[in-house]
């Protein structure tokens, strides 16, 4: 088991996804027919044996907290350790304190625990990564800091808002660059790092007094030359969920079985809140192709190139194409949906026709009745 605490840092730099994040934090956005974004990084952490995970929340965290509960689904409902959900911090004058303030407010938590390292990650980089391998690389290299990246091509991927790494031949990070995308291949920083607890505590103590609030931009990126910074390359599937368009594109990517397999099985499974739904049932009239269907769905209509979350009902004659239908939506008879995203519990009445644009799906918010 790795000698590390996990920190899921939602305090800062969380991309917003319009309608999907009006009433929830980005980390709680449903994804992949069954999950929330945070499930991926949380499962990655517990799969490599991390026993303590602190979640730095921002202000919109009710649905996230409902989802996480006591952490039981991830084996984190423990007496000592387990899941710590830390509230957003404000600095004395009432303004937002950033992640540095949150680290500072909870330094005790880090100082008391006996783990030597801290894995810090955002939740919007969806992947299935073996953190034990990252830890081995970090320890073997003797680095102060290990940054995780993936090699991505700017011609086939949307890399806007990415931070890229300049990695030397010795595997050390020479520079980090904000929104500086090269033609062709880029080493995209996955907002995941391993840092020794000692260094982290030291950085937090020193920076917080200087009114800095962003650990990454104000501290790490400005001082790279002071430390030995190791780069770790991740080679599995990565979904960067930083806009509705990318959310949609990355969801649709899961309809390729190689991505489905890579994200959900390699190297380990992804945990989420269990809903105890029966298997999906297909009626006589079901016509489903190239789609992901979760349990609890009752499918009597046509579903093409789409993702149905748990408990969706598709009545006879309804047609769903290139769409994402979240939990417990009901699509009544003869409705036609194309290029849309329905948030949870949307009800689409008989014969309704909803259509979005090919790359910019129309989003209908939670519990709408259409």
């Amino acid at each position, binding site marked *: 088991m790795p000698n590390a605490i996990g920190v899921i840092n939602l305090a800062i730099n969380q991309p917003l996804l319009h309608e999907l994040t009006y009433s929830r934090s980005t980390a709680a956005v449903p994804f992949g027919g069954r999950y929330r974004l945070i499930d991926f990084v949380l499962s990655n952490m517990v799969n490599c044996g991390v026993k303590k995970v602190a979640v730095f929340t921002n202000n919109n965290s009710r649905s996230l907290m409902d989802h996480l509960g006591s952490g039981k689904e991830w084996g984190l409902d423990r007496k000592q350790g387990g899941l710590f959900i830390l509230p957003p911090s404000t600095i004395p004058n009432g303004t937002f304190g950033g992640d540095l303030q949150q680290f500072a407010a909870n330094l005790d938590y880090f100082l008391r625990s006996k783990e030597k390292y801290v894995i810090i990650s955002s939740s919007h980089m969806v992947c299935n990564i073996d953190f034990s391998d990252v830890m081995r690389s970090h320890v073997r290299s003797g680095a102060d800091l290990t940054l995780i990246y993936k090699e991505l091509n700017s011609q086939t991927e949307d890399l806007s808002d990415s931070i890229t790494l300049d990695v030397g031949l010795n595997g050390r990070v020479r520079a980090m660059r904000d929104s500086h995308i090269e033609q062709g291949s880029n080493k995209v920083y996955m907002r995941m790092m391993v840092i020794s607890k000692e260094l982290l505590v030291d950085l937090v103590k020193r920076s917080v007094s200087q009114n800095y609030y962003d650990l990454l931009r104000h501290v790490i990126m400005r001082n790279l030359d002071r430390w030995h910074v190791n780069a770790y390359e991740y080679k599995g599937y990565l979904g960067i969920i930083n806009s509705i368009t990318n959310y949609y594109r990355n969801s649709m990517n899961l309809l390729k079985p190689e991505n489905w397999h890579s994200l959900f099985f390699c190297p380990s499974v992804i945990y989420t809140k*269990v809903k105890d739904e029966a298997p999906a049932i*297909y009626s006589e009239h079901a016509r489903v192709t190239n789609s992901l269907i979760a349990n609890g769905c009752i499918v009597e209509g046509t579903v093409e190139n789409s993702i149905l979350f748990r408990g969706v009902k598709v009545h006879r004659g309804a047609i769903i194409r290139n769409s994402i239908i979240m939990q417990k939506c009901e699509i009544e008879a003869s409705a036609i949906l194309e290029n849309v995203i329905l948030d949870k519990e949307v009800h689409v009445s008989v014969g309704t026709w909803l259509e979005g644009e090919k790359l910019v799906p129309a989003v209908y918010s939670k519990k709408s009745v259409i």
Partner: protein
Amino acid sequence: MFKKECIAMLLAGGEGRRLGLLTQRLAKPAVHFGGKYRIIDFTLSNCSNSGIDTVGVLTQYQPLVLNSHIGIGSPWDLDQKNGGVTVLPPFVEQNGGRWYKGTANAIYQNLNFIEQYDPQYVLVISGDHIYKMDYSLMLEHHKAQQAEASIAVIEVPIQEASRFGIMSVDEELRITEFEEKPKHPKNNLASMGIYIFNWDVLRSYLLLDEQNPDSSNDFGKDVIPRMLREGRRMSAYRFQGYWKDVGTVESLWEAHMDLLAEKPELDMYEPEWKIYAVNPNQPPHYIAPTARVQRSLVNEGCLVYGTVEHSVLFYGVHVGAGSHIQDAVIMPNVKIGRNVTIHKAIIGAGTIITDDAVIGSPDSPDVILIGENDYIQPAIIPHS
């Protein structure tokens, strides 16, 4: 320990010999059912949904899978500090141990377990049947009738009645007669093997029964008839709904086909009465462009490229392109290659079926059974 009004004792030691290959390494209650569950999940979920939070599960035949399936009871919400689920294998004393002699002996051997909860009522059930039942309603009936023992009964076709314990009741549902597997049944009210006893009464009868060297120590054969002979107040509780013993390959297959009816008698989608199961943590299943899936149940983690009709796929099943699955039950993690044909069959968990294999035929009267973790090639296809 804390006093409990009613605790359940679940008999889960059945060998299920007539399930053949499926119960070589599993007790019958651990056999897979319904695309997602094991048979015992229905009874455990009934307990949980009925508000019975203390369940002793009596195992003996092949207990390991059941043990790890049940674990601490989390899936059924039975992971409780006070009560919860406890697996009770036969007990080994210094001079040895042996299997339970009969259903009543199984309860007798666990008197100590029951007594630590000091219950008023004990519910005795078995893990062999598929049904949804609110035991709290049966308990209400038991109390209202001021009975000392209550037996759940269901009407069966009279021609099948001789396979069951058959009861005669008066107009107040008091049991007047009980015959275990009668040759000439007088009516069709069959015992479902679900009993509620006043614990003090049951306790005294278990002690008496153990002292009787001629007894087979069985509820249906010994304890119930004796209680009736001795004039104990016994009541029948009528159950209406789906109830099926899936003790043979045919009945197991039929029960799966029942789930695929237009309006199945057993509703697994009722939000107020979920059937709980151990979660395999699998993603939504994928239906490829080449696939066709109709009148079927498909669980998470499946990859379907072929045609699936009127069939049940458990989790993690792969069906290759060009394959055709009809009227079949495909248990967890079965991998089916390309251009395979399967008709009217049950395929055991983990089996691999390679390209071009043909299993069963549309007009065969029998259900083909293939065991667990088998490896089937076109050359060695078993026919019925």
